[in-house]
């Protein structure tokens, strides 16, 4: 559980560190999309304990983040 918490903190801090390092905004945006997805899946599986839920419920909980991030990324790419 502590390892998941540390991973979530690292994923939260990473974009800030990358931004401070002067990374390109395009790289930063796609990094943020990827990290949001990683954080959401970690939270759903470990903190929400959906890892041990029936597969349909787990899929629905994980699917929310995947669909929302995919649509936002798609709209961002098109825009």
């Amino acid at each position, binding site marked *: *559980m*502590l390892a*998941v*918490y540390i991973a*979530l*903190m690292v994923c*939260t801090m990473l*974009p*800030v560190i990358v931004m401070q390092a002067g990374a390109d905004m395009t790289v*930063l*945006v796609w990094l*943020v999309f990827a990290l*949001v997805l990683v*954080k*959401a899946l970690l*939270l*759903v599986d*470990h*903190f*929400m*304990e*959906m890892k*041990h*839920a*029936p*597969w349909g*419920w787990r899929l*629905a909980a994980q699917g*929310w*983040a995947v*669909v*929302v*991030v995919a*649509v*936002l990324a798609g*709209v*961002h790419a*098109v*825009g």
Partner: protein
Amino acid sequence: MADNAAANEKHLPGDMAVWFFIFAELAVFGILFIGFGVARSLDPDTFAAGRAVLHPWTGLINTIGLITASYLVACAVHRLRNQNTGTIALLLGAIAASSTYTFGKLWEYGVLYADGYNLGTDTFFMFYFFLTFFHFMHVVLGQIILVVLAVKVRKGDYHTDNMNGMESGASYWHMVDLVWLVLFPMLYVLA
């Protein structure tokens, strides 16, 4: 250990009715997020100007507060399931950690309002105030639920054989955190 037993069988944490409620909430937030994305693509300059006015460090501290609270709530569920002490302290710790979010958000609302920004300023601030206040109300409700859980644990209402209420409350809390994990970068980085 009860944790190991729970891991070996498929088990939906909490009440199924609460999960229908959680998915309804997630659907509403999801539609609003997609609406935000579409509105941003139609007027990127307004959204970029709005984002520049926000306080990203407040958003970052809020995120750390909510993730810490979620971690403490998850630990509280494990400790109660394994009949260990310290569940109430962890729940109170979660309330304290999440208070950094509530006070941080109120501070940011105050600063923005004093600078003349409100729901009617432009499309970005309409979304900003609506989305964040809608989420803020969920956080406050979540904090009330955590207080109720702490009281009921103290009274001995929840234990290894009766985790339904505790798991339901914890799942709601994690949903609030999950929504913020998308909302924070969407407003403070991507806009």
